[in-house]
């Protein structure tokens, strides 16, 4: 009996072992693949890594926006016995503010023990040395390196290059890869305009982690595709010299290559330091910027709107010629004023200029002459011509936030529910009234007069070494205006500077082959009443913000146009006095820098 029962028990036990073997087979073979996957997802932690952002260079390869190592202290609480004591020790070496300390403690609580928390970014060499020397007292704290965006020229090109900042929650919701730690996206300027090319493709790194989340080793690393380098048309040296020349004025100057529209310098003064956006702008700094009446955050060159004043007169003249309402030699007499019904419009010269032809009208900047031309041509023809010269239209500049200004027409006025007033046409004849334009548009206008081509201003020279279209003069269509008319405008501008009695003799360049042709302008920011005029109006005595803007546009050399420059000095009062000397010096600088500019320009343009 016992034998039978014992055999029964033994058989039962062996059977159970067999069942266990079957279960083992099921787990390891039948379901093995599923568990292998689970095992890998346990141990392998995949992390995307931000690719190095493409650099922004000037036309000669000077770095305008680059990447720099950012040394930071990170703390892995799991490697320290007493996290609080370690943090205290760190604070004794590198003082942390209460706010920083609170942030760190919050992050330490929220994360797993082996996920590092950043203690301090942008460590100085002294801080790093102090941390490294005291490493034994700082278990779990290491100094590691990331990258940060740097702008070596700082404020000089802040508005052109722009800046980057960490993406916000909305950006990440739209494009999840933006959530990568360390990734920055372009927020302004060229950083924003070419953000996608500069950004590159994220890479991935596979790491083996243990159950506590601690990294054991790196299994695989796929470097991302670095962002592409972006070459701007800017000449950093010229930019710096222009900025220096602007001094303390609240002003803007644009230098274009008159032949192809390349923006060689685009300055706005005052400016701001774009690097501050990387580490975070303080509240006080922000308030200072936004309250400053000299508007450091606005790119005056592309988004600052000013009435063009007398610089607009070439467009009016061309409109008159094109319409056939005035011939090149036709004279108009200026008695010092212009009556339209009951309204009297004054010339800047009280005593009048007498009889002037178009060349004389430009040279003397006679207001009455252009009141009459504008009256004859009508506002719509003037506007159409201004548009062809680049005023009041979208110039296609890459900068986000660039404005096209306003060139009023009858239709525009009607769209606002009002009838066009002939008086408005008269004001527009001298670039006042509703007209609003930017220094960039004025420079384009002059470049078009000088070159006879519909050049558009542009900042992108090459992306990843590939020269973009627009670098060669031939890329731009002719303006389709009679050469005789354009020549007349150029002659008038030459006379402004180089002839006795011109309005801007101060801008003359006495160098062979570098003769400058230009036009001054002063645009009122508020209307001058008759009472003021009768009581001896002197705009120079007004409060700063009510003084007229001073403008000067020019190109050179006169006989072989190379550069076009536009200068606007906010509330500079008189173009001839405040802006023309700046324009001249900038032009001299540009002309004499020629040697440093790349010679291979034309060759590259045909690639």
């Amino acid at each position, binding site marked *: *009996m*016992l*034998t039978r*029962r*014992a*055999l*029964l*028990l*033994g058989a039962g*036990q*062996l059977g*159970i*072992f067999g069942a*266990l*073997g079957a*279960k*083992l*087979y099921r*787990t*390891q*073979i039948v*379901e*093995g693949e*599923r*568990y*292998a996957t*689970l*095992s*890998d997802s*346990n*141990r392998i932690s995949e992390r995307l890594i931000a690719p190095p952002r493409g650099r922004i260079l000037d036309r000669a390869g000077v770095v305008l926006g680059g990447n720099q190592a950012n040394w930071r202290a990170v703390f892995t609480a799991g490697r320290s016995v007493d996290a609080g004591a370690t943090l205290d020790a760190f604070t004794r070496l590198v003082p942390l503010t209460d706010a920083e300390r609170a942030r760190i403690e919050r992050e330490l609580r929220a994360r797993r023990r082996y996920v590092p928390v950043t203690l301090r970014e942008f460590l100085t060499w002294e801080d790093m040395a102090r941390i490294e020397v005291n490493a034994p007292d700082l278990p779990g704290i290491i100094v590691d390196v990331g990258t940060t965006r740097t702008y070596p020229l700082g404020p000089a090109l802040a508005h052109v290059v722009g800046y980057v900042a960490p993406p916000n929650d909305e950006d990440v919701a739209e494009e999840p890869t933006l959530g990568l730690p360390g990734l920055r996206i372009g927020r302004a300027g060229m950083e924003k305009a070419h953000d996608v090319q500069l950004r590159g493709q994220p890479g991935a790194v596979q790491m*083996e*982690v*243990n*159950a*506590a989340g601690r990294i*054991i080793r790196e299994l695989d690393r796929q470097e991302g595709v670095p962002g592409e380098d972006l070459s701007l048309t800017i000449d950093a040296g010229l930019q710096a010299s222009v900025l220096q020349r602007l001094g303390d004025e609240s002003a803007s100057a644009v230098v274009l290559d008159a032949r192809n529209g390349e923006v060689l310098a685009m300055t706005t003064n005052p400016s701001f330091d774009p690097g501050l956006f990387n580490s975070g702008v303080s509240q006080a700094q922000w308030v200072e910027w936004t309250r400053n009446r000299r508007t450091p955050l606005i790119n005056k060159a592309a988004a600052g709107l000013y009435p063009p004043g007398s610089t607009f007169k070439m467009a009016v003249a061309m409109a008159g010629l094109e319409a056939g309402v005035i011939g090149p030699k036709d004279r108009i007499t200026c008695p010092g004023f212009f009556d339209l019904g009951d309204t009297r419009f004054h010339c800047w010269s009280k005593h009048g200029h007498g009889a002037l032809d178009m060349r004389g009208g430009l040279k003397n900047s006679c207001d009455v002459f252009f009141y009459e031309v504008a009256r004859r041509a009508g506002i719509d023809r003037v506007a159409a011509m201004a548009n062809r010269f680049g005023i009041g239209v979208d110039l296609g500049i890459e900068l986000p936030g660039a404005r096209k200004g306003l060139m009023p027409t009858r239709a525009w006025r009607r769209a606002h529910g009002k009838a066009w007033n002939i008086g408005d046409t008269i004001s527009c004849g001298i670039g006042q009234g509703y007209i609003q334009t930017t220094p960039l548009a004025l420079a384009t206008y002059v470049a078009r007069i000088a070159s006879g081509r519909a050049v558009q201003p542009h900042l992108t020279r090459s992306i990843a070494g590939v020269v973009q279209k627009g670098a060669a003069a031939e890329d731009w269509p002719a303006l389709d205006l009679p050469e005789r008319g354009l020549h007349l405008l150029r002659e008038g501008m030459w006379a402004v500077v180089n002839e006795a009695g011109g309005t801007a003799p101060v801008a003359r360049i006495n160098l062979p082959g570098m003769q400058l042709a230009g036009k001054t302008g002063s645009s009122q920011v508020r209307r001058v009443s008759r009472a003021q005029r009768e009581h001896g109006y002197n705009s120079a005595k007004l409060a700063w913000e009510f003084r007229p803007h001073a403008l000067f546009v020019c190109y050179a050399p006169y006989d072989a146009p190379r550069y076009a420059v536009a200068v606007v000095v906010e509330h500079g009062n008189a173009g001839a006095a405040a802006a023309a000397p700046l324009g001249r010096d900038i032009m001299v600088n540009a002309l004499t820098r020629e040697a440093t500019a790349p010679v291979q320009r034309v060759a590259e343009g045909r690639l």
Partner: protein
Amino acid sequence: MIAQRRLIRAEPSFGLLPKLWRINWVLVLLLCALAGVGYVALYSAAGGAPEPYASRHVLRFGIGLAMMLGLALIDIRLIARLSWPVYGLSIGLLVMVLRVGHVGKGAQRWLDLGGLQMQPSELAKVGLVMALASCFHRASWARMGNPLFLLLPAVLVLVPVGLILKEPNLGTAVIVGLVGGAMFLAAGVRWWAVALVLLPTPFAGRFAFEHMHDYQRARITTFLNPESDPLGAGYNIIQSKIAMGSGGLWGKGFLLGTQGQLDFLPEKQTDFIFTTLAEEFGLVGGLAVLGLLACIVGVGMVVALRCRHRYGRLLALGISTNFFMYAFVNLAMVLGAIPVGGVPLPLVSHGGSAMLMVMFGFGLLMSVHVHRDVEFGGRRDQ
């Protein structure tokens, strides 16, 4: 063949040398092999080092082996006489552990005996087997059918089971109960009696579930659905299954088991030692260990069958069933087939008390084998 062997009557004629000759060296070899498997597994569990587990494991096994061989030489009749004292001692220790025991992991299981920590429940298993063997030793077929006669052995089982439950240690209590049941079965209890015990089990289980500790109830619910709490109580089972499953046919290689080496596997040196092996050596390694365990149980059964006296047979059966239960509960637990219950894999897992008690049991088994032919008073089996 068994009957042809000479019955050993006179003690003097049965000296030390014949006894050594009679030792079952196959079993010794199998046990050494299993301990060797343990060494490999513990070496791996320590991340590829003999310290702190593997070297101590060998030392303990050495001591255990010496103890086993020593016990093998003790006359089985003397051992039979010590059955009751050993049982009594184990019950005493169980009572003591409830009073002064060391609390570990939420239960009083450990007793500190002059620096040596032990779990009295381990001794209770052997004590119970000895007591029941002694009890059934003289029981005729007719007596086994008498419910009144079965009352005493039933109490012998229920007392330690109840005390262990109170620690509380559900897993061991169930094992002790099942080992007792197996002894009853082997001794020839009637099938109707078996049915009488088995039928109310579901209801008793229901009742027990309602009176369980929360951690025990959590264990059962997570067993039924481990994914319900993947980072909590179900974590161990899931990680164990992932580790074994990802091992595949040939395993990831010695010291290359990612689940074990990267600490995803909890308690890998104790309860989940088999998982470590199955991950690194695959199905092949796992089945080899399973086969080794089956061989040891099988040899135990053979020892029982070859014994000519009833006490020895029952003792050998109980000891090997006990070993079987150990192995079964541990393997089923790591395979996710039954709730996790803190039962180590004998001779493989890290842990001194369990190892020594297992070797103590095998010592008794070996004594049965050595003294399989001695004349023993009482009812001879037919």
